[in-house]
């Protein structure tokens, strides 16, 4: 490649960067602003705030449990969507994506209508003296509904990309459908699944609207970190900023750990 071609390519690259710059700034600026506006003393105040510890523990507990439920029930669902040619599967697959496009507040109201005291299923639970709204389980339910589509979408794509001949081979080698799922399908789709889990986990951790409407904002019971930030904003904006920063840091650490330990070294690199 001669120097003239080099210059032409470089200038073309610069144009793309220039066009992308405004969006890039909008995406990065909130994080930078948080870093700049929250000093160490404010972070320390936020950490020592009694609300923080409870909210953080609840966020971790609920998001991890939600993630487990999403994985356990999401894998068979995604596998069915990926394998089935039926119209029913296609319609349900589209419906599962609904929480992604519907505002979380609407999901919160929907959950109340379904599981609230006078809701369709709420009456059944009421009969057993088990009210879901404004409890720990309401937080879980809100997180699962909001976050599951992110995992299911990634899993369906990962499953569809698998070499179907390998599934056939596994069947002829005497493995049951469940063994094939655990020994072939999940390990081979691992990268896509971890990607989906990361997205779902991030979405569950940051869930706000549906949780507020369906589970409330009770410290120690249903107050997750995003709700604690909302409450702190009314008292002390510095604490709210520091809590936001901590939530970002937590998300980054867990994202890094997930990527480091669960995404396999690419097969190309191994060769």
């Amino acid at each position: 490649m001669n120097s003239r071609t080099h210059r032409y390519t470089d200038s073309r690259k610069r144009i793309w960067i220039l066009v992308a710059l405004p969006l890039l700034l909008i995406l990065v600026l909130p994080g930078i602003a948080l870093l700049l506006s929250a000093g160490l003393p404010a972070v320390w105040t936020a950490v020592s705030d009694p609300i923080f510890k409870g909210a953080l523990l609840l966020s971790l507990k609920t998001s991890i449990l939600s993630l487990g439920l999403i994985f356990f029930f999401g894998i068979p669902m995604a596998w069915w969507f990926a394998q089935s040619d039926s119209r029913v599967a296609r319609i349900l697959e589209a419906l599962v994506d609904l929480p992604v496009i519907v505002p979380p507040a609407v999901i919160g109201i929907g959950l109340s209508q379904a599981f609230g005291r006078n809701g369709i299923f709420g009456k059944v639970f009421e009969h057993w003296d088990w009210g879901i709204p404004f409890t720990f389980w309401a937080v879980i339910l809100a997180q699962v509904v909001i976050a599951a589509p992110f995992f299911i979408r990634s899993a369906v794509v990962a499953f569809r990309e698998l070499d179907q001949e390998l599934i056939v081979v596994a069947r002829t080698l005497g493995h049951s459908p469940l063994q094939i799922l655990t020994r072939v399908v999940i390990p081979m789709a691992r990268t896509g699944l971890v990607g989906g889990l990361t997205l779902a986990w991030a979405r569950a951790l940051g869930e706000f609207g549906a949780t507020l409407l369906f589970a409330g904002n009770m410290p120690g019971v249903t107050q997750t970190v995003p709700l604690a930030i909302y409450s702190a904003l009314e008292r002390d904006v510095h604490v709210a900023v520091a809590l936001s920063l901590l939530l970002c840091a937590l998300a980054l650490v867990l994202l890094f750990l997930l990527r480091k330990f669960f995404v396999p070294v690419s097969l190309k690199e191994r060769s």
Partner: protein
Amino acid sequence: MTNWSAQFEFSRGDLELKVDLQGADRPLALIGANGAGKTTVLKILLGIETPSSGHFRCGEALLYSSEKSICVGPENRRRAYLPQGCGLFPHLDVLENVGFGLRAQKSLSVSEVNKLSLQALEELDVSHLKTRNPIQLSAGERQKVALARVLTMRPEMILLDEPVSALDIMARREVREILSEQLHELKIPAVLVTHDVRDVRELSADVALLDKGKISLQGCYQEISERRGDEKIHPFLKEFLGDFN
């Protein structure tokens, strides 16, 4: 000697099959144009696809019968399958790949599985590859590893889909020799889909031509090759036989 027969009807989209095949211990080469449904025939014999009617009998075992509502699943048929791309699992090393079928047998311990897998690799002179990942192997090595996995299963029938098409000339010759040797030793029926007459000759296989959804001709290679000069010979068969004697 194990006699087998398969007679079935199958339809999906544009593909309509009305197949009648018989065989014994001698391998059967299924030939035909692309899209004729050869691989689908293999998948029906494996139990992956279910025909609308017919039967598939191998020796005393009735594996499929629409009349008697019998359909043995692929996991219980003991039909080994060697697909075009070898079908090795990229997330497992060679030893784990070979032992994959044995792992489905609950009676075997991990050490027994490893021992049997290693034996199969040794039999094909590829035990030095046991810790490698399949993508690190040459096409010929992959084929041998896939064959080793088939051997560990002690199948009652082997189905091969263009087993040497992805190999270079030297590897083709080597794999054909190994296949011929193993099939001769195992004395079990085999069906292979191929576009290469050398596969038929080397494996001393019978030939069945699948055309327009039907088996338009079935016989031993010798008989069929003698018809090369026949004016009424099927054009695909004429091309397939080519200049070989």
